[in-house]
């Protein structure tokens, strides 16, 4: 088991309350979390990554139970065990693609220890994700959206964190590019140790996943 949530809920200052379904994610699984805009997908992502404090329920990521951890420990768990890909504007504009990819190791001693030669691993991941290694020296502004998403994927994958979370990673891509990106992402993970959760409001991507978790039905 990589991730397990139970009785997870969040209440905003405005009084709005979101109840999330219980779910479990195992190694090798590709899970889609779907829901309409404003259904709480981003809140779920923030709770899983430990950026939002846990109010009700429990989250267990590998051997870590969130309510037993302080904010600093949660930051360490996120750095060590989670790779995040955003919807767009994934990269820091003043760093090259290579430097952006290396950031995946910046805050995690555990992930750093798993990579002896970062540049070689990044080049290998780039090839797996269909990105020419020549582009790694470019700044994000010189790359297409699809290329930027691949650099973000390399950054999320480097050092083999157990959970890859992607927030609407294909919203800026056409259906063919979406299919290709998801295939490449899936083939880049280690099915023995890693799993992928993709958050999306687009139901058309559902066939690409092993399982779907729908949220926002009972708000």
């Amino acid at each position, binding site marked *: 088991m990589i991730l397990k949530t139970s009785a997870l809920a969040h209440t905003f200052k405005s009084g709005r309350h979101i109840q999330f379904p219980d779910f479990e994610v195992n190694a090798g699984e590709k899970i889609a979390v779907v829901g309409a805009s404003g259904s709480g997908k*981003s*809140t779920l*992502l*923030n709770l899983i*990554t430990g*950026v*939002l404090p846990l109010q009700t329920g429990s989250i267990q990521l590998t051997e870590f139970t969130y309510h037993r951890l302080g*904010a*600093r420990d949660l*930051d*360490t768990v*996120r*750095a*060590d065990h989670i790779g*995040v890909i*955003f919807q767009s*504007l*994934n*990269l*820091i*504009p*003043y*760093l090259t693609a290579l*430097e952006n990819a290396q*950031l*995946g190791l*910046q*805050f*995690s001693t555990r992930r750093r220890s798993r990579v002896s030669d970062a540049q070689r691993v990044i080049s290998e991941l780039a090839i797996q994700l269909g990105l020419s290694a020549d582009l790694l020296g470019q700044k994000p502004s010189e790359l297409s959206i699809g290329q930027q998403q691949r650099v973000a994927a390399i*950054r999320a994958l480097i050092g083999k964190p157990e959970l890859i979370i992607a*927030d609407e990673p294909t919203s800026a891509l056409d259906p063919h590019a979406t299919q290709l990106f998801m295939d490449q992402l899936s083939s880049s993970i280690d099915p023995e140790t890693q799993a992928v959760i993709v958050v999306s409001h687009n139901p058309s991507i559902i066939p690409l996943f092993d399982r779907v978790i729908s949220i926002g039905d009972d708000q």
Partner: protein
Amino acid sequence: MIRIAAASIRSRIVPTILVMIALTTSMALLLAVDRIQDATKRGFNQSLSGVDLVLGPRGSGIELILYTVFHLGKPTNNITTETLEDIESKPFIEWAIPIALGDSHRGFRVISTTAKYFDHIQFGGDQSLTFEAGRPFSALNDVVIGSAVADELDYSVGSSIFVTHGSEALGKVHDDFAFKVSGILNPTGTPTDQAIFVSLEGYELIHLGWTNGSQAVSLKNLDVSQIPKERLYPKTITAAYLGLSSKLNLFKVSRSINEYAEEPVNAVIPGVALAELWSMLGSIDIVFRIFNWLIIAISLIGMVTMTLTGLDSRTREMTILRALGATPANLASMVLIETAIVSITAVLLAIGLVRLLTWGAADFLSHWAGVRIDLTWINFSELSTLMTIVLAGLCASLIPAVMVYRRSLARGFSH
């Protein structure tokens, strides 16, 4: 983090450079003013030693010191040699050296005096004047030159010199009488280096036949050796340096000379006059210093403003770093590291600029007043001032750093 912070600064290079220029300039000005002022004071104070009093016509003591010792400004009045002889004969006076000013040679001031000048006048505390070549003047046409004069005009012992009437470069040249260099003084780092010394008699000789600034009779038509020596002793001089038999009587003697009934004269203690000068300039210095600190404060505010205005556009960057596991403290420290990089770079540039400004000022002072100031790199006290400024910058940057910290706690990955 330092690498990321440095890259982040590079991405905002234009505003960063502008802030850095403001910070560097203000810090350099603050230090340069201080060290130039200190060095100038030291240079001026060391320019004239061994002289207890400067005797001159009644008027401003500071002005008297400036035009006699530093060749700045022009004498407005003379005193009679009769008065000088009378004062010199007093028991408390050990020696008196008359000086007459007015002429120049290619921009260098001519001082007519007696050979005793080279025995009694000292510099840098207690160092006597020494000759690099030749000897003091003895003949009517002998001239002694300072080291800077010799260097700049490429003169050596035996070179001929024509003196210009007045201190203006375009004045009428006393071309009917040539002086010959009899000696060159060793460098002193004082106005002496830029002076040309002739005997009182030689000086008087070239002015024979001159009335109201124009020459009526040329020396070419005269047999100079036939002119009686006493005829060449001047009736008036510009000032005189006095040495006392006992320093304990300094203020008493100064007061008694100031009350001299036969002629309105003034006996100025050089140290006191210079202290008055520094005190007058001190208030200007305080105003200047206040303005400098204000500029530094404004530059620091500019640096913080630059960081604050950049925060909104950097939200995404902060979110990405948070997602990668950066703690709020990591993000706040990145802001502080950026400030540290900017301010420490500004400090290093300021040190270089201070050196450059001091060098420029030293060159200017050397040409303007003949005072040489020491060129040094940064000292501990200056470094402390700069570190205080860096610390102030870091403290000011706590504002955006705390804002980043709070924002990253309050916001998730959505924005």
